[in-house]
């Protein structure tokens, strides 16, 4: 029998890895062979350990005396994966026999292993690591190879990572464009050769003191022995200090310039891991692959960053701790290479009898499956009232009218929501609203387009009205030539002046990829290099503008011989597709057609993903990748399977936008209530409830005009022109401005939507609401004129503004308030004002 002390020790350990206290006993039972329950859960619903695994499962150590950390993961009966490294007992085993005559059988073992799972290489050869946790066992193979290194120290491989890790080369310190305090490092260390020069040669060599290494500036500044604007970054007993001191003492060698370089970062664990108690931890292991083939454990040499520190924090050595329930990505960076690990924190107790929510399509399957893992219960289905108002606002930017609401509520058909969605696509406001959104994205503004804005808007409108396939639309935008009043998609090019601008604009709008960083240097958070950027720019070098025939018209033509020159070297840069091969052209060929074909190809995953992600955000309030124009390896989707499935659906249906929108709008996920429950109140990325949001400037202006039946007059447009129909942000409207209409100054264009004093003042004393209520054409005046009762008028306003009938108490309140006013008219006006200022009106929910 195990001693009590040992049980206690195991219990404490288990608590720390994240098995709740209730699990301890069953696990101990497993461990010591006592009787255990048959099911996967104990009485309290906590899960049992079912299997363990080691990562990396196949370990290569380059050189002798080098170390490698491993992590042990337990798969529990509830399907969750948790770090059990600290429970593991490690031992070294002979290598798995290749055949029965294996000669290595009696060779000395090539490795040693410490308690915490750190393997150290002793000699060249093979071995296995054996791990035991409770009654589960796992093995990992280890191969110790010759490092192939002839030099003891190499700056790029051994020293440069120090500057990345402590942040010297970040963009707000010495990695800034002009460096800092006269000392400039390459951003995040992408250019170790330049950094070597900066540290050892520049500044008259005063940064490195070979005679008195301890007095080198490169040591005295970061230890704050002397004044340093960046403060103290490490102490004299740190690994960083010792590495630098050793290197300087050895004469600060550069080693072989040009290599070996860090090529890739591998991060373990590879799949999302769960932290289920406050004491649970997850150790990350990071392996760097170098250009010379070496693989090195760099777990303690990289820089970690948590995408959401309220959910999970990460220590400088890669230990992840939970903070609150939610999901976070841990970004890992060293020398221009990046990696990411995903963790989920579930600190709330398991839900008893987790409900099964009805599912309408794969969207619901994928969303609800994930929510169940996180033990979040989705909200209820929204009511018909909520649905009609929401889907009108989201799909056609317009409130339903009182009769439309009545008709929908009276419809008894079970398919009425789906039928309403279909019908809305036939409304002219659908094309208005989506050409407005796409106008924001494509910066349709006179600032760029001169007088072409109305033409461009009309063209976008037609694309939506006719449901032109999205890939066709984008090919036309990318590859058209002619006058901006005739060949309307050419207006797209007016927004970017230079080939470089067109690269960032195109990649952001259609690939959801931000390449702005790579314009000047290798992208710090992504695999894009500066060469990728310049290669893309070469597709746009032939684009030229001259004056068109008509006033202020521009004319786009192709100068076939115009090449793109490298901004510094002035050499001709060959056109190269992003992440793809160099492209060879026929003489005189318009290169943009090739770019457009590649960009919109079904095999270009970025294209479809970026599009579905944007559309999803418009309906769900948050992108599956968020922000939507930042699709990159280190900003992974919150639900990768969902993003991929939507993208595949979109491609398989010929880039049919209406099909995609219908798919989303018909999902139960979209139709969930915005009322939350105890489990999903804090959920912001799982789509467990609808996310309420204030109406946009245009939606709100149109809604007020519609409910009061008094159109807004915009300068130079006939009365009745609606805000969602305006071509550009220059159309003067104080109301639209203070309610945060898009300025269309850049393609990122995420609207801020903040509350402000100017808004409140305007709603209280401004003309927008007051003048409309006073107007002789308002329904107030009309209904009074038709001798309708106060109750009828109150009912009208509730239906028209909130898309629902008033509750009994609400009706009584309104009637009493009106009755006690100075006059009936005043009372009704005051009631209508209050309704138009209510949160339920101002918000889409």
């Amino acid at each position: 029998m195990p001693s009590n002390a040992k049980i206690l020790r195991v219990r404490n350990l288990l608590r720390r890895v994240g098995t709740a206290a209730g699990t301890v006993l069953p696990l101990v039972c497993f461990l010591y062979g006592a009787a255990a329950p048959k099911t996967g859960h104990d009485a309290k619903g906590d899960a049992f350990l079912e299997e363990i695994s080691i990562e990396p499962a196949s370990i290569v150590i380059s050189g002798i005396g080098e170390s490698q950390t491993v992590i042990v993961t337990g798969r529990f009966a509830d399907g969750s994966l948790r770090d059990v490294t600290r429970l593991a007992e490690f031992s070294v085993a002979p290598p798995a026999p290749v055949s029965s005559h294996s000669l290595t059988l009696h060779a000395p073992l090539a490795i040693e292993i410490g308690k915490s799972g750190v393997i150290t290489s002793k000699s060249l050869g093979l071995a296995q690591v054996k791990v035991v946790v409770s009654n589960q066992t796992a093995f990992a193979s280890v191969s110790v190879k010759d490092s192939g290194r002839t030099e003891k120290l190499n700056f790029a491989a051994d020293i440069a990572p120090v500057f990345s890790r402590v942040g010297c080369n970040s963009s707000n310190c010495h990695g800034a464009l002009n460096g800092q305090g006269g000392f400039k490092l390459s951003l995040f260390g992408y250019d170790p050769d330049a950094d070597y020069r900066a540290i050892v040669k520049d500044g008259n060599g005063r940064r490195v003191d070979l005679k008195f290494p301890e007095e080198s500036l490169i040591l005295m500044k970061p230890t704050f022995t002397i004044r340093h604007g960046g403060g103290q970054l490490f102490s004299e007993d740190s690994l960083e200090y010792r590495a630098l001191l050793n290197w300087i003492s050895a004469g600060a060698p550069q080693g072989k310039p040009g290599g070996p370089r860090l090529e890739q970062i591998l991060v373990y664990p590879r799949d999302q891991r769960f932290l289920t108690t406050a004491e649970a931890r997850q150790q990350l292991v990071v392996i760097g692959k170098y250009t010379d083939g070496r693989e090195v454990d760099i777990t303690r040499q990289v820089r970690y960053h948590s995408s959401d520190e309220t959910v999970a924090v990460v220590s400088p050595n890669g230990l992840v701790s939970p903070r609150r329930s939610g999901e976070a990505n841990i970004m890992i960076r060293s020398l221009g290479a990046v990696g990411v690990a995903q963790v989920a924190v579930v600190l709330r107790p398991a839900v008893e009898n987790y409900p099964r929510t009805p599912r309408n399509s794969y969207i619901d399957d994928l969303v609800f499956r994930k929510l169940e893992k996180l033990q979040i219960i989705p909200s209820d289905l929204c009511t018909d009232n909520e649905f009609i108002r929401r889907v009108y606002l989201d799909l056609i930017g317009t409130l339903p009218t009182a009769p439309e609401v009545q008709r929908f509520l009276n419809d008894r058909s079970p398919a009425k929501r789906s039928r309403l969605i279909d019908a809305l696509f036939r409304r002219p406001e659908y094309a208005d609203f989506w050409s407005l959104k796409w106008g924001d994205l494509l910066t349709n503004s006179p600032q760029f387009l001169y007088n072409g804005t109305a033409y461009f808007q009309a063209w976008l409108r037609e694309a939506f009205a006719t449901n032109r396939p999205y890939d066709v639309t984008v090919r036309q935008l990318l590859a058209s030539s002619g006058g901006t009043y005739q060949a309307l998609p050419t207006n797209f090019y007016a927004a970017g002046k230079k080939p470089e601008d067109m690269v960032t604009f195109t990649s952001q709008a259609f690939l959801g990829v931000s390449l702005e960083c790579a314009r000047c240097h290798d992208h710090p958070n992504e695999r894009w290099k500066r060469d990728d950027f310049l290669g893309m720019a070469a597709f746009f070098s032939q684009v030229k503008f001259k004056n068109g025939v008509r006033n202020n018209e521009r004319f786009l033509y192709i100068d076939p011989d115009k090449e793109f020159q490298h901004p510094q070297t002035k050499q001709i840069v060959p056109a190269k597709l992003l992440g793809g091969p160099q492209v060879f052209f026929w003489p005189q060929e318009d290169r943009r057609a090739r770019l457009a074909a590649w960009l919109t190809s079904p095999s270009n995953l970025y294209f479809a993903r970026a599009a579905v992600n944007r559309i999803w955000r418009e309906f769900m309030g948050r992108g599956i990748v968020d922000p939507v124009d930042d699709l990159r390896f280190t900003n992974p989707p919150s639900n990768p399977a969902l993003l991929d499935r939507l993208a595949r659906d979109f491609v398989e249906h010929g880039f049919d936008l209406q099909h995609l929108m219908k798919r989303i709008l018909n999902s139960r996920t979209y139709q969930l209530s915005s009322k939350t429950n105890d489990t999903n109140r804090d959920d912001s990325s799982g789509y467990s409830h609808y996310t309420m949001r204030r109406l946009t400037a245009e939606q709100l202006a149109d809604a007020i005009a519609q409910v009061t039946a008094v159109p807004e007059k915009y300068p130079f447009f006939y009365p009745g022109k609606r805000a969602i129909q305006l071509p550009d942000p220059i159309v003067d409207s104080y109301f639209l401005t203070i309610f945060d209409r898009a300025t269309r100054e850049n393609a990122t264009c995420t609207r801020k939507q903040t509350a402000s004093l100017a808004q409140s003042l305007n709603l209280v004393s401004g003309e927008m609401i007051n003048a409309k209520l006073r107007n002789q054409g308002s329904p107030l005046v009309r209904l009074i004129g038709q001798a309708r009762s106060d109750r009828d008028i109150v009912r009208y306003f509730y239906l028209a503004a909130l898309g629902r009938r008033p509750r009994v108490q609400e009706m009584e309140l309104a009637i009493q308030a009106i009755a006690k006013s100075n006059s009936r008219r005043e009372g009704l006006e005051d009631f209508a004002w209050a309704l138009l200022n209510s949160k339920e009106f101002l918000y889409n929910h």
Partner: protein
Amino acid sequence: MDLFGRRDFIKIGSLGFFGLGLNEFFALKALAADTPVHGKPLETDRSIILVWLSGGPPQTDTFDMKPDAPKEVRGLFKPIATNVAGIQICEHLPRTAQVADKFAIIRSMTSREANHERAINYLLTGYLPLQTIEFPSMGSVIAKEKGPRNGLPPYVAVPNTFPSYGPGFLGGAYGPFIAGDPNVTGYRVRDLNLPTDIDWNRVNNRRWLLNQIDQYFREIDTRNEFRTVDTFYEKAYDLMRSSVAKKAFDIESEPEGVRSRYGRTPVGQGCLLARRLVEAGVRFVTVSKGWLNWDTHGNNFNTLEKLLLPELDMAYSALLEDLHQRGMLESTLVVMMGEFGRTPQVNAEAGRDHWSKAFSIVMAGGGVTGGQVLGATDGKAAEVVSDPYQVEDLVATIYSRVGIDFTQEYLTPIGRPVKLSNGGKVIAKLFG
């Protein structure tokens, strides 16, 4: 004061149809209440006017002239004497030169950032921007710490708000109030007056009704957004009721001579409006011409000589004289600065590019000892050679002048502590 004007409504309220009784309503109201100040303002109740030179003014062509430097550094302008012996400034700031006894020049400011948006964020918030935290501007911090005075918004932006002016993680309630351009004829702040057919009784009826209608819907808000919206409504009511506000914004009541002394430019009238607002109780006013007007990469000397310097000279000198004559200079700190300086070397376009290593700022009032120069740069105004001051020091100094403990920490929504000044020290020599 009878909040609702009409007892009938109170009666309806007491029936309690909608959960929120009058007590709660009063509590909400109290939450948004002012903190009035009586009697003589304390020293720490100073106001601040920030004359913001967006784009980055060239130190070599304004307050740190280098007449002995080579031509491609010293540029086209000559220094002139001021009313303080030994201090020289640009010849195109003649009126400013005559009030040099009232201001101190810091020639040894240094920053770590030479990109506009990032540097503006740095100067206005004391922090370089971070993707994960939106830092509050100084105006917003002061609005939060000191609250409104005399029912006026504590933080006003003239003519408009620009990036980094905002409240960051403090939330929308502490953002700047937008005054508009006081230089336009018939200037008045929009929506400050009730429509003629609506009196306060009706407004109060409306407020009460709105509050009742909202009750059913409140539970849906899990992010406290509605609370922010409500606070702004309360502020709007307070402001509309305020005769102080109406008077303060009424720039047309100012004598013609005063208006033209400041200059009939957005900056001139902006400075005049700032004086009126500060006089009435506003705590922090930014005055700017617009966005990046001082970003003279090309045609630097023409732009400065013909446009930027003359209007600034009129406005700034008038502001200091006016504050002095009204005895308000001691209680008003006037800070004039941009986000960085400009390159000592004139470029091929006769412009100067961004330069953050050394630049000048000018401080007056609020206890600043005028007629002095702090710090110095080398022969090209390229590097600071004595008394270097960091942006953090400047921010600490400004907070300390209004009695705010700049070492205190705010917690961001994610619970990260953020000091008001990131390790800065008060620039003591300014007050010596």
